[in-house]
């Protein structure tokens, strides 16, 4: 099975993150950049499918030059090769344009199964898996907490607020996963050394037959006009216990719908 995992490099969500003052895009210089957390689960799931059913795992990334660090890290977990869509004109691309680029790259790769994280920790819009599936004309099985592969049939437990739904589709398809689906492996020493020798192909927009005007700020369907930092956390509510502390505490919890 030919599996492609979508991997995005994001600013470390554990560090202080900000947007650039000049163009309102994510400031990738201010914090350490890491693989989007949910994508590690996608990589793990792809490796598990490969282990059970054979085939190849390709990592596909769209991002600036420094995203190559995350590609190496992803490859050290075990995928076979990587494709990096790299083009200065991509800076400022919206989700719609991003899906166009990734779908074009996926078209070239001819994937049976595309696996990605259900959301990224920077954008958090969760729309990309649907958009890509739509562009490729294949099924979107999103928000999976479990994936079973039986020949060309995919069965997914789709996580919901209340429980889960069982959804099936046949390949090719796009599956997005939550962090409930598995426990990602750590890169091993051998994996790190092997990653150095794995092929990484770089594709430009021209390679994909996409004009610069279709992506980036020029092709964006939405524009961020301005941004402000979240106000600092306010003091909270202090309950001084003068005999009625317990009651007031329960009242507070009830107001906040905790009880």
């Amino acid at each position, binding site marked *: 099975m030919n599996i492609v995992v979508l991997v995005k490099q994001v600013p470390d969500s554990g560090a202080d993150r900000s947007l650039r003052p000049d163009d309102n895009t994510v400031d990738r210089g201010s914090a350490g950049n890491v693989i989007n957390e949910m994508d590690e689960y996608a990589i793990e799931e792809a490796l598990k499918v490969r282990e059970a059913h054979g085939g190849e795992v390709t990592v596909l990334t769209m991002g600036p030059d420094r995203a190559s660090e995350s590609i190496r890290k992803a490859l050290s977990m075990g995928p076979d090769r990587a494709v990096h869509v790299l083009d200065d004109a991509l800076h400022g691309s919206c989700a719609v344009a991003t899906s166009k680029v990734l779908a074009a790259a996926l078209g070239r790769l001819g994937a049976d199964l595309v696996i990605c994280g259900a959301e990224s920790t920077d954008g958090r819009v969760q729309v990309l898996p649907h958009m890509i599936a739509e562009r490729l004309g294949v099924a979107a099985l999103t928000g999976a907490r479990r994936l079973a592969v039986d020949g060309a049939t995919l069965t997914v437990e789709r996580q919901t607020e209340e429980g889960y739904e069982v959804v099936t589709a046949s390949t090719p398809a796009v599956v997005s996963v939550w962090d409930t689906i598995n426990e990602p492996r750590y890169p*091993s020493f051998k994996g790190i*050394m092997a990653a150095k020798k794995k092929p990484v192909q770089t594709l430009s927009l021209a390679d994909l037959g996409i004009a610069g005007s279709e992506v980036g700020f020029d092709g964006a369907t939405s524009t961020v006009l301005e941004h402000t930092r979240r106000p600092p956390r306010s003091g909270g509510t202090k309950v001084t216990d003068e005999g009625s502390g317990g009651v007031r505490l329960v009242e507070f919890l009830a107001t906040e719908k905790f009880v």
Partner: protein
Amino acid sequence: MTSEPSFDAYLLPEEHEAVREAVREVCDAKVAPNAAEADETGEFPKASYEALKAADFHAPHIPEEYGGAGADALATAIVIEEVARACAASSLIPAVNKLGTMPLLLAASDELKRRYLPPVARGEAMFSYCLSEPEAGSDAASMLTRAVPDGDHYVLNGVKRWITNAGVSEYYTVFAVTDPAARSRGISAFVVEKSDPGISFGAPEKKLGIKGSPTREVYLDNVRIPADRMIGDPGTGFGTAMKTLDHTRVTIAAQALGIAQGALDYARGYVRQRRQFGKAVAEFQGVQFMLADMGMKLEAARQLTYAAAGKSERGDADLTYFGAAAKCFASDAAMEITTDAVQLLGGYGYTRDYPVERMMRDAKITQIYEGTNQVQRIVMARQLLKD
């Protein structure tokens, strides 16, 4: 002078940084959480061993041709350093696997290496090093353990003391006298297996630190082993033992670095949170001076250790000097840094509710084993005065 990003002298290779990141990730998640319990109970931390095995960090130095990860001496030092940062006792897994197998890598026949190294690489066996005896510590050449030829076998008798991971390890490098008249040139090295009849282990030593790593005596009572288990030629054992220590003192230095780094990291976090006199104690200059000294000593120790690791990998002629210097300097630094970390945490640092007192107790052994720091100074002085 303009800045030159491509200037890579004194810069670690990218893959070494990747290894550090990977070990830290595993250890933060899977090793550090077991450290306090291993110290408290004195139990070997099996879960930590499993986590290290899953990522090839349990014996990274075994060459690829024997099924290992093929880590160079610097990468191995970084692995040990990062494991020690989380749990000093667990760092003895990769460290002692290197110590036990180094005599084979340096001196054994290819046949012996093919037999004993792959199981270590696969994580099915650990390898301990048996040099010291009750009456032969710093003066290792005065050992009493004998190996007497018997047809195509040798029969070993004696007591080995302070054997790290004894009872847990499957294999043992044992040094024994084959020619008493020849003193240090009459000592030979052998591979002994835990399953060999006649081998048994003493009660676990009650130690100050590294409690999760068992230390026991190894008793050899008429242990009869095939002669082809000798490592190298008869009479070369003591030389092999000393050459091994040249390499593995670098790993003890790395262990000391990791323990010290763990203590410094914890203390740095603590002093920024702990408030007295209306401000974080980190804002007091007296505290800042202590932190600065800790960081400075640690980084000096790290640079010396990494330089020594490079020499270990290349087999440079001055490795003996550098191995001793790195081990001695880094372990002395670790003792000071961990003691200061306890001081920075005040009364809390003195309790087992905080990890720094464990780190201080763990640091102490690095000044003692694989040659006391007094022996290291003898080694260095001899090198300085030899020509």
